[in-house]
């Protein structure tokens, strides 16, 4: 196997004039530049339907638009040799002006980052570096604001933080004798990687086989097919040898981030706290590539109107190119940003109206029976399970909500405060009709001769326990002991399509698919057993026989008409009849909100500005809890990542487009275990709900766990020191500056 290395641009915006790779080739390396790559423009992320998908990316291009973008790549016998070779390549650049501020990038005369991109199959011009824009309006907004008793507003600034996922982006590609490729990538969707590689390199999909590799975390960083995967494929195809390409952590930190944005939000309400209107403007910094900005703009207002019932809404969102790392989904896909803004203003509104903010939330939240469209205007669902009141009341009790101090009343060096944030994430992007986002899953289930079961799905597990949950669903549906359910290794050539593990859809939608397949299998089991037992199929049923450690087919009224699943499958086999198996595709027709409520108690050190987490109480409404330990782990992780977003993490770029941290983690400040509240100070609880559309009543949890956390912190800090922060992260320095300003004003 050869080892690959990428030559990254040191400039954030430049045209590549000339590449001289002779020295690299002289030491035995295989080199690729844009001349070796099919000139196919694509989008790394093919979840948006093809007709409205923006495409601006080439595997290697003659123009770089962010610092660290690949210019060339090499493969050599050892990583050391590859490193030597990549450094021997000489590149001449025409350096272009760099745009790091989206507002400046939109100004007339700003250097265009793109002239044109593809939208569907049409070439469209990019003007003022605006990748796309969306306006959505419902109701009579002007009237709502004219007749409002109170209006609150704020401008919120959210930074482009790094995913900091466990593994850096990586791939191994092996060229096959038939001209095809076998690929082992870090990805959240093996099928989408397959489709894209087939399209870019013009290889029939039957010859592209992508394998599922266990990964320990993604936070959305690998929903798209990341740059190292097609680069590795191109190297393997040119070298006719397998190639491994893995980004260093510093390279990875330059590769993608969360969407940065500025949100201006206004909420209008009546004296009794009824929300009547909202105006929202979002300027989204998408970085150097448009990965899914159009959908992002849709969900940005979707999150708002799905948090609270707001009859009159006016929204305008603009996605702007800059010469920075491309923005992509990161745990919440815009939801933590919007929830931070909304939950901050809800608290402000409650204070203005002198209403308990918890009551204000209960009065206005989108709950049971309400329509919502969290995943954008085309993805409408009715809420059928709602644990919000339970979560709010139980959480309030556990944290001591009613005893919290009046905001800003604290004195002395250390000041404590309690904050609340509530939110949700949609379980999948399912809906009755197809939308602009592809969302369906598929699965196969088959019965083995010993009564054990194989589950075959292309769904990914990023360390959250998704596949374990699927095993439990199949075990329950087929009355087979859990240890006899096998999650088969997956590859694209032997699995049916599954779109991607994202959008908090793994258990809900992926689990829905295995349940559908398991139920079909169950029918097949009963029909087949009916043949052997001479009983009507619909008179038969299944149960788990714990003594036999397997499932048994029986009919309650005739005790001797029974056979184990092993007997059934063995007869089908020995009589050369068939394998009992089922394959299904499944489109969720709903995307129920998985609600999460977070209460945090913080202590602010007014001498240093440091904010300490004293206690956290998290409540989740994920419907039926399928793996309790893993679900609690998701909540703990959400708190940790959310605290990082609220207090520690930021990614700053210098005006010439260089990442100030250089990509070194020491200054990226992802929260570590030391920032996590002590286990005794963390409480997790689950609502007693059942989601009718979910597998055995389950909804999702993953992204919901982070969405309200930053808001809860900001509200807790406000409760402690009486100061509201509109920009994340709330660093010690910002706290001290704000305290000083407050002292000046109030003496």
């Amino acid at each position, binding site marked *: 196997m050869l080892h690959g290395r990428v030559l990254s641009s040191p400039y954030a915006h430049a045209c590549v004039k000339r590449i001289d790779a002779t020295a690299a080739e002289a030491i035995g390396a295989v080199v690729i530049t844009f001349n070796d790559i099919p000139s196919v423009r694509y989008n790394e992320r093919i979840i948006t339907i093809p007709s409205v998908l923006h495409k601006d990316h080439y595997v290697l291009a003659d123009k770089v638009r962010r610092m660290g973008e690949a210019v060339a790549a090499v493969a050599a016998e050892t990583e*050391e040799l590859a490193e030597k070779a990549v450094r021997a390549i000489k590149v001449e650049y025409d350096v272009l002006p760099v745009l790091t501020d989206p507002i400046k990038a939109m100004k007339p005369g700003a250097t265009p980052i793109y002239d044109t991109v593809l939208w569907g199959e049409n070439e469209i011009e990019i003007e003022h570096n605006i990748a796309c824009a969306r306006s959505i309006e419902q109701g009579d907004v002007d009237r709502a604001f004219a007749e409002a008793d109170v209006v609150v507003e704020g401008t919120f600034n959210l930074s482009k933080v790094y995913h900091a996922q466990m593994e850096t982006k990586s791939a191994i590609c092996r060229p096959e004798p038939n001209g095809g490729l076998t690929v082992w990538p870090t990805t959240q969707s093996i099928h989408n990687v397959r489709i894209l590689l087939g399209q870019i390199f013009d290889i029939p999909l039957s010859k592209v086989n992508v394998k599922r590799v266990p990964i320990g975390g993604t936070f959305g960083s690998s929903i798209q097919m990341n740059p190292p995967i097609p680069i590795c494929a191109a190297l393997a195809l040119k070298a006719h040898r397998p190639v491994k390409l893995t980004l*260093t952590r510093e390279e990875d930190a330059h590769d993608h981030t969360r969407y940065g944005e500025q949100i201006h939000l206004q909420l209008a309400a009546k004296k009794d706290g009824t929300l009547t209107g909202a105006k929202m403007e979002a300027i989204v910094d998408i970085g150097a590539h448009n990965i899914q900005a159009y959908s992002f703009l849709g969900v940005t207002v979707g999150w708002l109107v799905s948090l609270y019932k707001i009859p009159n809404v006016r929204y305008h969102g603009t996605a702007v190119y800059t010469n920075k790392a491309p923005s992509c989904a990161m745990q919440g896909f815009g939801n933590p940003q919007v929830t931070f803004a909304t939950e901050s203003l809800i608290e402000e509104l409650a204070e203005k109206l002198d209403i308990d903010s918890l009551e204000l939330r209960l009065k206005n939240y989108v709950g049971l029976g309400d329509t919502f469209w969290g995943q954008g205007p085309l993805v409408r669902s009715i809420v059928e399970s709602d644990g919000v009141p339970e979560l709010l009341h139980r959480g309030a009790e556990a944290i001591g909500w009613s005893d919290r101090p009046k905001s800003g009343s604290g004195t002395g060096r250390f000041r404590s405060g309690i904050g609340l944030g509530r939110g949700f994430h949609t379980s999948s992007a399912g809906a009755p009709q197809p939308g602009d986002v592809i969302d369906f899953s598929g699965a196969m289930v088959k019965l083995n001769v010993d009564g054990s079961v194989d589950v075959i799905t292309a769904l990914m597990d990023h360390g959250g326990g998704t596949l374990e949950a699927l095993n439990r669903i199949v075990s329950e549906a087929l009355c087979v002991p859990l240890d006899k359910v096998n999650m088969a290794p997956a590859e694209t050539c032997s699995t049916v399509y599954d779109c991607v593990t994202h959008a908090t859809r793994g258990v809900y939608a992926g689990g829905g698919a295995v349940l559908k397949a398991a139920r079909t299998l169950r029918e097949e089991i009963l029909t087949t057993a009916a043949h052997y037992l001479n009983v009507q199929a619909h008179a038969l049923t299944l149960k788990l026989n714990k003594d036999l450690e397997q499932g048994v087919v029986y009919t309650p009224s005739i005790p001797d008409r029974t056979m184990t699943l092993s007997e059934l499958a063995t007869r089908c086999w020995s009589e050369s009849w068939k394998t009992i198996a089922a394959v299904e595709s499944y489109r969720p027709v709903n995307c129920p909100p998985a609600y999460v409520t977070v209460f945090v108690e913080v202590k602010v050190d007014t001498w240093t500005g440091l904010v300490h987490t004293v206690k956290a109480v998290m409540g989740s409404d994920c419907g039926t809890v399928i793996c309790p330990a893993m679900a609690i782990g998701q909540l703990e992780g959400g708190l940790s990542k959310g605290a990082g977003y609220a207090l520690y993490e930021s990614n700053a770029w210098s005006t010439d487009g260089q990442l100030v941290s250089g990509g070194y983690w020491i200054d990226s400040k992802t929260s570590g*275990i030391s920032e996590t509240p002590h286990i005794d100070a963390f409480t997790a609880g689950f609502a007693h709900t059942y989601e009718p559309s979910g597998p055995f009543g389950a909804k999702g949890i993953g992204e919901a766990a982070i969405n309200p956390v930053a808001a809860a912190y900001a509200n807790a800090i406000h409760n402690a020191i009486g100061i509201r922060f509109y920009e994340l992260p709330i660093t010690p320095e910002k706290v001290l500056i704000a305290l*000083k300003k407050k002292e000046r004003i109030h003496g």
Partner: protein
Amino acid sequence: MLPEFELLMPRTLPEALEMMNESSRVIPLAGGTSLLVDLRGRISRPQMLINIGGLDELRGVRVEEGYVVVGSAVTIADLKHNVLIAKHGQVLQQATRVFANPLVRNRATIGGNLAYGSPAADAAPPLLVLDAEVELTCKDAKRTVPLKEFITGVRETVRHPRELVTAIRWPILPEGSVGVFHKLGLRKADAISVLSIAVMLHRKNTEDYAQVRIALGAVAPTPIRVTPAEELLSGGPLTPEVIARAAQLASESTHAISDIRGSAAYRKRVITALVKRLLTNLAEGTKEKKHNESEGYHS
């Protein structure tokens, strides 16, 4: 990715000094926790490294002739658990508990932490208030330099290219001395200091202090002693008024830097707050431990 370099592997200190003498371009490598990061990031590109981390002569902590002597290749983790350091260098031991993370502490050495010349070296402020000296050895000579003269700028020291830092030493503290270290970082572990501070008091009698020493890290191009504040405090009782004045003076007399971790203005504000807090705690005899825990700096 690490670039290529030659690595010399001496087995003894004389052999190492011989190798150092042959070329002025040999860079000493001990724990490598800073140097290897620079190599990967192409910040420094030495052709030849010499591994001195394994030399027995550079290991061990001992007390001799009124001095505590620490071999330069003693790791931060070793210091954290050493009984002699617990007795004679408590202020340094406090710093080892919040130094980077356990993995780095196992590799990083005390000599390397100083010789790298970082303004944010967490071992420097405690050693500055201990009045430590750095022992520098070359093939034919040995000299001792006070630590406050050793680091001269960002990543600059008085070490001659053919010299090795072989030991750090400081005079045994008089009875009644008490010291404290505090680190302010943007994260509780694995963070480069925004500010680190060490304070040492030598008691004259029950009321008065013969000498007060204060050192700051990560605020100026080198770790520094804050002499004006020290002079104000030494000789008398530590009243709240004099502490407040000294804290103000410490901040005013420091030419603070701005960087990715904090602005100069923020640093100046927290210098005042922390000098005041540490002095007050020491004067009242309360333990700083309580506050360190409240900020969650776990060992």
